């Protein structure tokens, strides 16, 4: 029964990982931008959710809807001020510049948030009952969050497959120059991709603060974890991020249960090294 419980817990944990990791993955895979500030968007999402909850006391699932417009605007500004100016360079230059620029952005967001907010951490006192299925406890809140994430993944999947913007994003992922030649507005599509990616991080932040607690300083360590998931699943792959998140969640839980909890945080890095050695493009990435 312990094993079943652990796998269930890992599965539910992996769902939250997947949501944030996908946002990072599309920015990295499509734009060649490694957004080190990705975790800061998650932190800001968590903070905004806390603020809305403290003010209005509404259900955290509805808070997601309330904060999306805020993050669309914030992501737009971030992209325009920090990301757009580094375009028009070679791929390697863009990647290196994006790391430096977004690292600076991350530190700025972190310090300004800590200064303005004052508190060092908090959480949303929201919980739900758990379901018992054949001796396995399934936290209803995590199940709902996973269902929400699955639904969101499905919507994004269809958006990428069916809409012009989605197809353009895929085209850029496959061949940037080719996409430009066939008339795709790279700047516009890049901006939309960045906004989608960072908004997904903000949504993940809402769930994060409900499940755990938040601090203005949590962003960078989360970014590193999500980078591991992205590399594990494959750059720019929606399914890859989802699978990577679930694999990491389940593996962490199993290692924590059978080997010891102090080994759980190292799992992501072992997985990263292993995948880079055996399949550098990730489990679901293209060569």
């Amino acid at each position, binding site marked *: 029964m312990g094993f079943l419980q652990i796998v269930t817990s890992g599965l539910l944990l992996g769902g939250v990982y997947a949501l944030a990791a996908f946002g990072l993955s599309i920015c990295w895979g499509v734009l060649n931008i490694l957004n080190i500030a990705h975790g800061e968007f998650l932190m800001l999402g968590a903070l905004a959710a806390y603020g809305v909850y403290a003010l209005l006391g509404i259900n955290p699932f509805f808070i997601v809807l309330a904060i999306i417009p805020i993050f669309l605007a914030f992501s737009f500004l971030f992209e325009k001020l920090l990301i757009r100016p580094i375009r028009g360079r070679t791929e390697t230059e863009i990647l290196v510049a994006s790391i430096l620029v977004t690292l600076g952005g991350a530190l700025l967001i972190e310090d300004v948030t800590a200064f303005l907010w004052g508190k060092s951490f*908090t959480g949303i006192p929201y919980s739900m009952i758990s379901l018992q299925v054949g001796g396995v406890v399934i936290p209803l809140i995590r199940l709902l969050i996973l269902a929400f994430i699955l639904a969101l993944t499905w919507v994004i999947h269809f958006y990428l497959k069916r809409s012009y913007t989605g197809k353009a994003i895929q085209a850029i992922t496959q061949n940037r120059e080719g996409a430009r030649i066939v008339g795709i507005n790279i700047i516009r599509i890049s901006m939309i991709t960045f906004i989608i990616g960072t908004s997904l991080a903000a949504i993940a932040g809402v769930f994060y603060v409900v499940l755990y*607690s938040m601090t203005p300083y949590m962003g960078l360590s989360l970014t590193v974890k999500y980078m591991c998931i992205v590399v594990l699943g494959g750059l720019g792959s929606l399914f890859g991020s989802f699978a990577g998140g679930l694999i990491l969640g389940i593996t962490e839980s199993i290692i924590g249960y059978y080997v010891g909890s102090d080994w759980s945080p190292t799992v992501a890095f072992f997985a990263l090294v292993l995948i880079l050695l055996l399949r550098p493009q990730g489990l679901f990435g293209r060569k």
Partner: protein
Amino acid sequence: MILVWMFFLFFLLGIVSLPNEAIAQKKKVILIGGTISETGRYASDVKPWPKLMNTWAEMINERGGLWVKSEKRRIPVKFILYDDKSDQATSIKFYERLVTVDKVDLLIGPYTSPLTFAATTVAEKYKIPMVCVEATASAIYKRGMKWIVGIDQAGPKWSDAYFELVRHEGKAKTIALLAEDQIIFTEVVPGAVENAKKIGLDVVFFEKAASGTSDFSPIITKMKEKNPDLCYVGGFIPFNIAFMKQAKELDFNSKEFHFTHFGISFKEALGKDAEYVTGSAYYMPGMKFGNYKFFFELLKRSGVSITEYPWANDRMWGFDAIQWGIETSESLKRDDLMQAFKDLHIMAVAGALHFDETGQGTNRPIVNQIIGGEYQFTWPARPGYPPAKHVYPRPKWSELK
């Protein structure tokens, strides 16, 4: 020309006839330097500390300052404080500055054992007295340092009061323990394991988790399989919040959850799920030891709530030590001051204070419980303490209203 020479001669005579004290600049203020975690992970625990410290200095200065034997007069005190950002390296940087640039007379320690572990190296390097507060880990004091004293009792004894309570009631039989991998908890929790064994409890689970762990499902699943009466968690507040949330999610119904740190952020983040949790604190209103009236006045004037900031009492012990150390010292010379601290035997705000050979003090945590959304005093039930109240066992999650 003769007039000029005569003027010069009188001038020299005038200088020579002045008393020594007038030539040597009279000390105007005693400078005490320290860092406060105004930002970073510890900030919410010590947010009002600058206000608390400066108000203490104001209150002391209203009566002229602290008595200095060698000067035969009172000298006002002043704090110089910097934000260490809850970071060891930043703390060291500012303590260096306090000694070399600000030229303080003595140092007061930062918040938490990890920061104090780092900051004390500066005191030792420059041979300047440091009074450590809010730093329990005995690893800090066992390095043979000569220039530090710390008011808290050693980490392994942190849980003494809690296990006195458990033994006194005699209801619990089994216990599961978890430690966050931080210098303080790797002493406190093994100390709790020893205490549990001493009173005959069966330790059914004991594990260490990485600092900052957020997923506790493997740990809680293992604990749940052992079905312990008590669950003892040594961790900082974010760690403890995540643990408690997942204990509910996984329907882990220990009869009591006990946390080493369960201040106001813990209570706020958990809401009613924090109900009946017990934890450690250093003070509760109603404790009447030492200069407690002064402490109440200090809390009132600085606007600090002792229930929201339970470590304020720890700081007051530090103030008591500084006050009595300076006033009993032969002079403000560093050697004299340090000797005075080591020789102290006083009744501080929540009990007797003296330091052992390593420099570690006698301030030990009491036990409180959250009942009806408020912190209630729970143990020890002795004269000088407020009436004790303890709800055990706590209701199951499904019955918790």
